[in-house]
Every structure is written in C-alpha cells, then in structure tokens.
C-alpha cells in the first residue's frame, strides 16, 4: 500500500506542475501571438515629409492641396493569387505581370487605355532596318536604391531574363531578341533574329531591373525597380506593402501606401470588400453581383477580359471532330446567349470571333453562327453523322468561370443533335499536360496577356507549334506577314483577316468572352479595371 500512496502524491504533484507549465506556455504563446498585432497596419519607416508651406498661401485649390501634402492614404487590394517571387522578371502570372511588376518596375514601352504604345522607360523607338530597333532611353531616372537607369541596365535586364539558368516564366517574350547593344549611355540597339512585329507588345511585359540589386540573393523578397511604388514589407501569404516613390519619373503617385492581400477563397474576398477591409477585390462571382450592387459604398465593374473560352477540337485522327461541318453543327446546337445570360448571369459576352472582343485587333464583322438545332442536325447529317457520335471533353476544373455548369449545358445541348459528350472535370495541374497530347475536346481559351495578335495566334494556329494541330496555309501566311510587319495598324488589319479565315474553319467551338468582375469601394478615385487586368495605380487616390 505505501508505495502506491507515495506514487499517488507524486502523480498529483506532477499534474499540478504540468498544469502550471502548460498554462505558462500557453499564455506565453498568446502574448507572442498578440505582440505583432499591436500595430495592425505597418507604419512606414519614415514619417511623411510635408514640404514647407509658403508663407503667402494662395487660395488653396484641390490640386494645390494635393501638391502641398504629397501622396496620401492607403489603398488595399485583394486578388486570388498568392505572390511567389517579387522579382519583377521572374513570374508569369496575372498578379505579377498585371500588378506588382508595374508597381515596382517599368517596361521600356507601355500601353495607354486604348492599347496604343506610349513611352515607358524608353522615350522613343525606331526600326532602323528589318532586324534592328533603336530605343532612346529616358535620362535622369534612378532605381529605388539609387542605381542609375541607363542602356547598360536595359542590356543586362534582357540578358538576365533570357538566361535559361534564371528560369524566368516569361523568357519566351524575348525569344525573338538576338542581341542587345549599348550604343551610348541612353541608346540601345535591339537586334531580332527575324523581323518581329511582336517585339514591342512583348516588351510591355518585360521589366527593367537594376544591375547590382538584382544580383543579390534577397532580390526576390526585396525588389528594386524604377516604378511608382517602392517595396516596404512582404509577409508571405499575408500581405505585401508598398509606398509611394516620391521621385518617380512620371511624377509622384497620389497614394501614400498600397497593400496587396492574397485571398484565395472567393467568398472571403467578397466579404472583405463588403466589410470595407479591402478597397478593390478581383474575381467576384457572378451570383454575388446583385448583392454587392445594392451596397451604396461599392461600385461593381463587369468588364470583358482578353480571354475567350471554347471547346477546342484536336484536329488529327480519324474522328468526326476533324470535320469543320461537325464543329459548326456543334456550335449551332449550343444556345450561347442563354449560357451567358443564365449561367454567367450576364458576365462576359457570346463569342463573336475566335478572340475576345476586348482585344484591339478584334474583328467585329464576322458572320455569327446562330443557335439553330435544326440546321445543326442537318449539318451533322451532311457531314456523314446522321446518328451523331460519342466523345469526351476535358475541363481544367475551376479555371474558367462556371466551367462545370457551362460544360454540362454544352453536353445537354449536344445530346439534342445526337452527340454524347462525356464531361471530364480534371484538377488543373493534371489537366494542362493533357492539352499537349492528343485529346478529343478540351475546354480552354488563352489569355492574350500583351493584347497582341501574335500572342493570340502564332502558337496555336501555326502548324509547327499548334497544340490542336491546326493547319491552314492562308492563316499561316497571314500570321507570318503580321509578324514581319512593324506597322501596328497594318498588323491589326492582318489579324482581322486571320480571324475571318479561322472563323470559317471553326477549329474551336467558341462559347464566350470571359468577363472579369471587380468590386471597388467608392472611396477609390481615378481607377478603372482593364481587360488585361493590369492595375495601374499611379493616378489613383483614396478619400477618407
């Protein structure tokens, strides 16, 4: 009995002790947990320097006040994407190309609102001969760390992004570039392998980086550029904080601070803009629009993006899908108006060409294929399949809006003319490699990130590179002609002809132009969403 008794006491003592230790440990953790939360919004490293107010104050106008006080206010943005690397040359994803790169850095050539070229870090550019472009650079521009922007920095930036060891996601944007020569401090000569009309549009996505800073190991977490905002703080998966670059070559931005929040969950992002925790949210679901529109403090934008999605047929093999008549029958059997109005609730638009109507080279004059099941059935019979056929459709799950609902609707429409289409929703990482091997049908489109026809057509509609094995000599000729031309108007006209030719073949059963829905707090002024999703904040401001 006695040993048991002693052990009982020690056990009790232990339990008390353990409870105490546990309590201490827990409270310690909570203290730690709360410590960094004491200051919810990070204080910028230096207090805003207010320029001295002149003794004789003129009648203050709004503009004058802005000039006197400098950048003010914080703008908070939420998107779906997690930031990977902050290095402006590394990533090829929407949030990098369209937003963070453009905050930290600048390209040589930029687009205005109408997608005409305007000077970025280059003041002017001229084609000296078929293969050589001369860029005159802006003088007196400095990177955030004080490094000088000049021709050497441009040459270095191009070579860095092209270097296979560096593994830039967008390295192919510079695939045409053969060499870069420094002519003088502020002039570079870019030589292409063959005449390249795609060079300028591609350059709008290529950021220029500083030579010294970009060699440092921490460049991916501590980026330096020439852009309107400079890097302040990055907490992975949580937030990215940027502040106004008062010495920006294009004039100081109006916002003092910009914070980016990656919020992967659609409902949470919508909730965050409703509660006012963020000012701009991208990727609002169609069914949320009505609920957001009634909120007086919010504005909801539904804009066409640069992407157009459809059912892509693999064009080799002895299958019904290789016949143009079959694909046209399929298109006419699908009520696309209803898909856009009912399933997408009006977000986006019925496809009127093989590319989105938001693109500057879109051809608005193509003859539409109406919804007409009877004629569709007749076409199918004419093609030799009066009883229809069976096939399947691979869908990268969750990539395109309402993909499951839309493809189910497509299958139901096709059933009415005798086509049995099995819909296979495949997780995205597993789905994309399937696009590179023979398939039956694949539900996809292609975002034209640089808004240029070369990106839209030169890959999937040229026989050497087409993943769906499209081959039309006339289309190939037109694409090559557009590629060789450096006159943008001429190129856009050629791309309109390309669309007309492809529209006759109908290799893709185009369903709809993808719409983007943004919600914005009305305290944000002077900002609008764009089809390419670039978020340009230099002139944006916030109230209150």
């Amino acid at each position, binding site marked *: 009995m006695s040993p048991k008794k002693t052990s009982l006491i020690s056990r009790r003592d232990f339990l008390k002790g353990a409870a105490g230790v546990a309590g201490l440990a827990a409270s310690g953790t*909570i203290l730690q947990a709360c410590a960094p939360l004491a200051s919810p919004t990070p204080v910028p490293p230096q207090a805003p320097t207010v320029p001295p107010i002149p003794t004789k104050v003129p009648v203050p106008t709004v503009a004058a006040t802005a000039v006197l006080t400098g950048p003010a206010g914080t703008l908070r943005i939420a998107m779906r994407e997690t930031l990977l690397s902050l290095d402006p040359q590394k990533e*090829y994803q929407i949030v990098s190309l369209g937003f963070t790169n453009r905050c930290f850095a600048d390209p040589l050539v930029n687009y205005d609102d109408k997608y005409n070229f305007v000077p970025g870090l280059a003041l002017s550019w001229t084609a000296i001969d078929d293969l050589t472009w001369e860029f005159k650079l802006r003088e007196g521009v400095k990177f955030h760390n004080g490094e000088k922007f000049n021709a050497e920095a441009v040459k270095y930036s191009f070579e860095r992004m092209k270097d*296979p060891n560096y*593994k830039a996601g967008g*390295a192919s944007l510079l695939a045409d570039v053969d060499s870069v020569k420094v002519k003088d401090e502020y002039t570079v000569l870019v030589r292409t392998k063959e005449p390249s009309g795609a060079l300028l549009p591609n350059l709008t996505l290529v950021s220029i980086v500083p030579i010294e800073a970009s060699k440092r190991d921490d460049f*991916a977490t501590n980026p330096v550029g020439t852009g309107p905002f400079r890097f302040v703080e990055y907490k992975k998966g949580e937030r990215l904080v940027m502040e106004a670059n008062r010495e920006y070559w294009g004039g100081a931005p109006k916002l003092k601070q910009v914070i980016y929040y990656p919020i992967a969950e659609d*409902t949470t992002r919508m*909730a965050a803009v409703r509660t006012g925790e963020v000012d701009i949210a991208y990727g609002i679901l169609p069914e949320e629009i009505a609920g957001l529109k009634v909120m007086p403090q919010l504005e909801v934008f539904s804009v066409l993006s640069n992407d157009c999605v459809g059912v892509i047929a693999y064009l080799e093999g002895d299958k019904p899908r290789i016949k143009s008549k079959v694909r046209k029958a399929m298109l006419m059997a699908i009520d696309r108006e209803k898909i856009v109005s009912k399933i997408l609730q009006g977000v986006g638009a019925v496809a009127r060409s093989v590319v989105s109507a938001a693109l500057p080279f879109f051809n608005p004059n193509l003859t539409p294929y109406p919804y007409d099941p009877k004629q569709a059935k007749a076409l199918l019979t004419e093609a030799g399949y009066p009883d229809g056929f069976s096939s399947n459709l691979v869908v990268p799950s969750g990539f395109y809006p309402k993909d499951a609902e839309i493809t189910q609707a497509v299958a139901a429409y096709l059933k009415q003319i005798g086509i049995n289409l099995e819909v296979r929703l495949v997780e995205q*990482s*597993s789905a994309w490699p399937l696009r590179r091997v023979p398939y039956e049908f694949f539900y996809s489109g292609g975002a034209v990130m640089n808004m240029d026809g070369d990106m839209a057509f030169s890959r999937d509609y040229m026989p050497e590179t087409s993943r769906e094995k499209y081959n039309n000599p006339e289309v190939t000729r037109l694409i090559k002609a557009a590629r060789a031309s450096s006159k943008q108007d001429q190129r856009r006209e050629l791309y309109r002809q390309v669309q007309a030719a492809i529209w006759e073949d109908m290799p893709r059963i185009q369903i709809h132009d993808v719409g983007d829905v943004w919600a914005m707090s009305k305290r944000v002024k002077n900002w609008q969403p764009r089809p390419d999703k670039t978020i340009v904040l230099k002139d944006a401001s916030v109230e209150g």
Partner: protein
Amino acid sequence: MGNYLVRRLLQLLVALLGMSVIIFLAMRVAPGDPAERMVSPLATQQELQQMREALGLNKPIYEQYVIFLYDVLHGSLGKSLFYNAPVVTLVLESLPATFQLALLSMMVVIVVGVPLGVYSATHSDSWPDVIARAITYIGQAMPSFWLAIMLILAFSVGLGLFPAFGRRSPSAFVLPVISLALPRLARVMRFVRSAVLEVMHEDYVRTARAKGLPERSVVYRHGFRNALIPIVTDTGLQFAWLLGGSMIVEVVFAWPGIGALTLNAIYSRDYPLVEGCVIFLGLIFLLINLIIDLSYAVLDPRIRYQ
C-alpha cells in the same frame, strides 16, 4: 525509460524515412507537371523541356530521390520550385501562424469540451445531456470550410463584429479559432463523456461514494482521473490534427500558415515544398504521439517503460 526513448526515436526516424519515400513517389505518380505552371503560354515544347531540365525533373526518379534525401539530411529540404527559397525557411516562417491557431483552438476545446463532457457523463440522459449530445452530432457533421464561410457571412458581413480574413488584430483570431475548435470540441466532449461514463460504474467509484466523499471529488479525483488515458490520447491526436488539418480553414481566412502553404504547393506541384511540409507535419505528429505515450507513465503509475 532512457532505452525506451532511444528506441522510440529510432523508430521515429524509420517512420520519417518511410514517409519521405511515400510522399516522394505519390507526388511523382500524381499527374501534373510543375514546369507547365512556370512557363508562359507562349512557350514552345522545347522551352518547356528546358524548364524541366532546369528544375531537375528530367533526371531518373531514383536520382531525384537521392538528391531529395541529400537535401533532407542536410537540413535544407531542398529549394521550392515556385518560391525560389529553401523549403525549410518557408516552413519555419509559416509554422508560428499555424501554432497560434492550433494552441488557441486546443485551449477552447479543452476548457469547454472537457467539463461539458464530464457533466454530460455524470448527468447522462438528463435534458442538458441530450441537448449537448445533439449539438455535438451537428458539430461533428459540419465541415470546417462550410462553418468558416457561414461564420464570415454572419459575423463579418452581417454583424460586422470580426474581420473576414487575415491576422491583423487579436479579433481576427476569433472566427478561425471557432471554425477549427467547434468540430473538435464536439468530438472531445463525446469522447470525455463516454470515457467517464465507463469508469463511473467501476468498483472504486462506488467505494469512493461509500466512503462519503463529496460527489465533486468522486467525479474528478476518482472518475475523471482514471478516464484520463483515453482522453489524453484522443485530445493529443486532435491537437496534431489541428496542426496538420487546418488547411481549409487557413485558405478560407487567408491565414499564412503551413496548411495554406501545403495546399498551394500541392496545387502547383511544387514537389520539394510538398515533401518538406509533409515531413515537417509528420515529424510533429510523431513527436506528439511520443509525448502522449510518455505521459501514460505519469498518468498511470502502473505503466512503466523499459
């Protein structure tokens, strides 16, 4: 005890090695190609191949495993394909956020769940017990992500009481902690109830009552303490689950923890990062198991480890 500990730690190493093989193979067998996610849609097949080579994905699978094992043994766990940073740094950066959530949730679970379970057991079939049981069934049946979204819609959007996402203030902890704690609280409460119910019929409990001890003392010192082993086991495992299983809740609340990190890594097929996260979570799970086993000897002096 010393011998036992050494033996257990060796077993732990073997388990980790086994786990590394399984997760390594599972990632390679799963369809999908990380290189595809890294190149632009403009890239040609040749450029894709170049990217695969740069990432080391073209090497034979056993060679890739040897490289991976080398990285594990050197403590770096390799380099993330997407974040371009050492895996071990990424994992360590994300652990505090997850630990904060898990510890707070566990405290809620224990502080609320254990007394409720004991009460339910000692007052079994009373109406509070019936209500509590009904609630626990519902609590266990509710998926965390659904609960999380409902909480956001009700308390952030509807009432405006708590932030909808992030961890910018102490109040931002409330909704994620509830989403994580509620399903587990239900489970722990049920477990405590049945464990205590079982011992309350034992002879020693009757003896304690016969001695005239106050009921409180009978329940907690004689009943509950003897029911502790299964309770500690289950609660400990619940804690391990909270650390590894908070993925969905972390994603919903945009919480920068290891769960969200792992899930993103899986989606993007970031092989080294998935492997690193799984090995870390596995290690934590095994350590918690070991601590639970060691605690038996303390909770029940009849148990000795040789």
